[in-house]
């Protein structure tokens, strides 16, 4: 079968008016029916109709899309063969959306947009998986979106299963499928779509497939190299992105390590779980600047970035995890009352305001100033002594319980002060009752010392530590201890006559650690080294057990 020309009318109903896209399994057209209504028609290669199993799979899956949520799925209206031309085609409604590839081509998405994308994918795929329908070929060409990712719809359900039966050698969308989906001998499993959703998230954030071998190349796709790469877990998505010439914060490493695990059992259990994990990492308010320890930006290009502020960071957060700025404590997230949220979001915008709202030492000043303002409005303004007295009151107020803070907020809001001042007061009140100890009576504490960037690591060595190398550099222990900067380290202890011992450390700033190291004595051989017994194992014959 040759590609039908434009103007061809399929089954007397669908006139092909424009070619939209060439696909691995055929061509996609814009078509119109007798009423002029626009549709999308996919004309399939003849190989698909010549394979009964593939044709059956396509029909069944197209039928199954009727039960999927229309908000997130492009349903197939008809799958037929034109009786005169022998052309197999599928019809779906035409939507004024662009493909994810086109959208990302205009620039990578931010974390909030990617989270919306994943949430929509989760809804579509969860419904499909509940009906034993696996997409298996999810990629940027069959996910359709609008500009702000408010609308996301998945298309081409069933095509992958049919394609897998027709095209030997590869089962999924190269670059967006895991090794299990790539191997067409593997039956379709929802975990295949979990991998694809993870790969799409990586693509959305970086504009690239997570696999080096899947990048566009003049030589075309090297399937063998791609297959080999699929077998190896991606330890660090940040480093992988760097290799691909893109930027991704290391805070995403754990998420992508699980989402893109070669073994299906190691992945998220469902696309919904994956989307939830992503949303949790993306933070309660997409677009809010978030920072990891050390002030490293962790979200890529997201919104305005607050200046590095040591006191605004939660040093209790484990290294590598997301640090919540104290200027936006958990209470200020989705769980906070709407008014308080409005107050908080309408609050600091400039870097100076962010610092003011986030620095606990100045927080105590906010409430007294507001109280003074209210008193002035009531005609009770006084001199400097009165102001000092009010500051003293404010300090006590900051130490007060939730009830008193609430009362203060009510008093402030009841006052005839400007609405902006009332909002600030409400924000201060919330901060006053927030659980972190840093928020209470900070004004009376001495200013915090410079943040620790390292930690004391001590070792208990048996028989002794010998010479020590950390991260490839010789180090000297003082009292069997040394200071290491926050992050991952690898220390090797060696001593003549003993097998070297390696200790892998993850150091968190300010948290001392103690490790036991045992150097095992090597037995001296008296004679020449005995040769390693030759292996008689073969590949086909006498394979090793």
């Amino acid at each position, binding site marked *: 079968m040759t590609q039908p020309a434009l103007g061809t009318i399929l089954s007397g109903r669908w006139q092909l008016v424009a070619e939209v896209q060439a696909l691995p399994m055929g061509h996609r057209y814009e078509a119109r029916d007798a009423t002029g209504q626009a549709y999308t028609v996919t004309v399939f290669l003849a*190989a698909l109709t010549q394979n009964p199993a593939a044709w059956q799979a396509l029909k069944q899956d197209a039928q199954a899309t009727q039960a999927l949520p229309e908000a997130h799925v492009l349903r197939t209206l*008809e799958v037929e063969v034109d009786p005169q031309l022998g052309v197999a085609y599928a019809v779906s409604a035409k939507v004024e959306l662009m493909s994810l590839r086109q959208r990302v081509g205009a620039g990578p998405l931010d974390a909030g947009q990617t989270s919306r994308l994943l949430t929509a994918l989760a809804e579509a795929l969860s419904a499909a998986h509940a009906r034993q329908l696996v997409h298996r070929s999810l990629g940027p060409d069959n996910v359709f979106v609008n500009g702000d990712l408010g609308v996301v719809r998945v298309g081409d359900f069933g095509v992958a299963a049919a394609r897998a039966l027709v095209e030997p050698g590869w089962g999924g969308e190269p670059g967006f499928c895991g090794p299990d989906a790539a191997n*067409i001998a593997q039956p379709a499993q929802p975990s295949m779509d979990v991998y694809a959703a993870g790969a799409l998230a990586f693509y959305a954030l970086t504009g690239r497939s997570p696999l080096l071998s899947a990048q566009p190349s003049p030589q075309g796709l090297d399937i063998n190299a791609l297959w080999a790469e699929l077998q190896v877990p991606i330890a660090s998505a940040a480093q992988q992105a760097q290799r691909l010439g893109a930027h991704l914060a290391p805070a995403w490493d754990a998420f992508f390590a699980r989402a893109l695990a070669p073994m299906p059992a190691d992945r998220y259990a469902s696309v919904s779980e994956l989307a939830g994990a992503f949303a949790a990492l993306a933070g309660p308010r997409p677009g809010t600047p978030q920072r990891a320890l050390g002030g490293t930006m962790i979200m890529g290009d997201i919104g305005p970035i607050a200046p590095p502020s040591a006191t605004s960071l939660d040093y209790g957060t484990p290294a590598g995890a997301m640090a919540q700025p104290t200027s936006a404590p958990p209470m200020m997230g989705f769980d906070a009352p709407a008014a308080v949220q409005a107050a908080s979001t309408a609050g600091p915008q400039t870097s100076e305001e962010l610092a003011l709202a986030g620095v606990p030492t100045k927080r105590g000043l906010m409430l007294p100033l507001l109280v003074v303002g209210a008193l002035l409005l009531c005609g009770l303004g006084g001199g400097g002594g009165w102001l000092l007295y009010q500051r003293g009151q404010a300090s006590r107020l900051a130490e007060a319980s939730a009830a008193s803070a609430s009362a203060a907020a009510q008093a402030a809001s009841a006052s005839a002060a400007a609405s902006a001042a009332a909002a600030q007061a409400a924000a201060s009140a919330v901060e006053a009752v927030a659980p972190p100890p840093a928020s209470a009576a900070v004004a009376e504490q001495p200013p915090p010392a410079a943040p620790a960037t390292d930690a004391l690591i001590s070792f208990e060595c048996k028989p002794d530590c010998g010479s020590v190398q950390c991260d490839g550099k010789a180090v000297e222990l003082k009292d069997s201890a040394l200071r290491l900067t926050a992050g991952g380290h690898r220390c090797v202890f060696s001593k003549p006559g003993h097998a070297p011992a390696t200790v892998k450390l993850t150091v968190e700033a300010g948290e001392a650690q103690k490790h036991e190291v045992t150097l095992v004595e090597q037995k001296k051989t008296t004679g020449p080294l005995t040769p390693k017994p030759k292996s008689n194992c073969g*590949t086909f014959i006498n394979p090793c057990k």
Partner: protein
Amino acid sequence: MTYFKPLLFVGLIVGLTLGGCRRRPAEAPVAAAPTAPIASSPKPPEPPPPPKCESLSEGCTADAQTQQPIAETGLWVQPPTGWHYATEAAGPVSFHATESAALAWVAARGTQPDDVFAALPALMTRLEVAQVKTDVLRRRLGKPDSRVEARGAKVRLWEVSKATQKPAQPTMKGRPGTLLVIAAEHDGPPVVGLAFVLEGSTPELAAEVMKAVQTLGGKL
């Protein structure tokens, strides 16, 4: 007043008549019937012709019942389940879906080492196998590495790897791995097979090849 009622009646009749003769307003165009969903599609699709599985491009995938004849020898073999297969004119061939393993068969002219050796070039070309030290292999063909009993044939096996022909390692499509030479004899003409598994593949692939070898026999 006496003429009022008849006049009213006549006027009513005239009015109704004129009104009925007036041209009707144009009816709204009837839109074409909406597209019927699949469930109500009236005509079933024409059943596609079954594939002949004579070429790998047909995309035939072996299942547990698939059997392939080896030329006119009377021997049949079952390709590993899930592999792509084709019964080509020279003999059956099958590839793992990832092309990390392959198996091909041809008829041989006899069971002697020279006969087995003579059948190898066609198989090596078919599977794109290279880097085989043929002189070393030729010498080894006198004595098999192993013998197995298939369903209906006696099978001799030789494994060719980096260990058996140091330092060269056989390759398939440029990728290193291990080669297996298979010679099977039965009541009819003998056959020779060649299998290859890429280095780093799971042991299950080699096991699938060995299982397929043991299916050699008459048609089920």
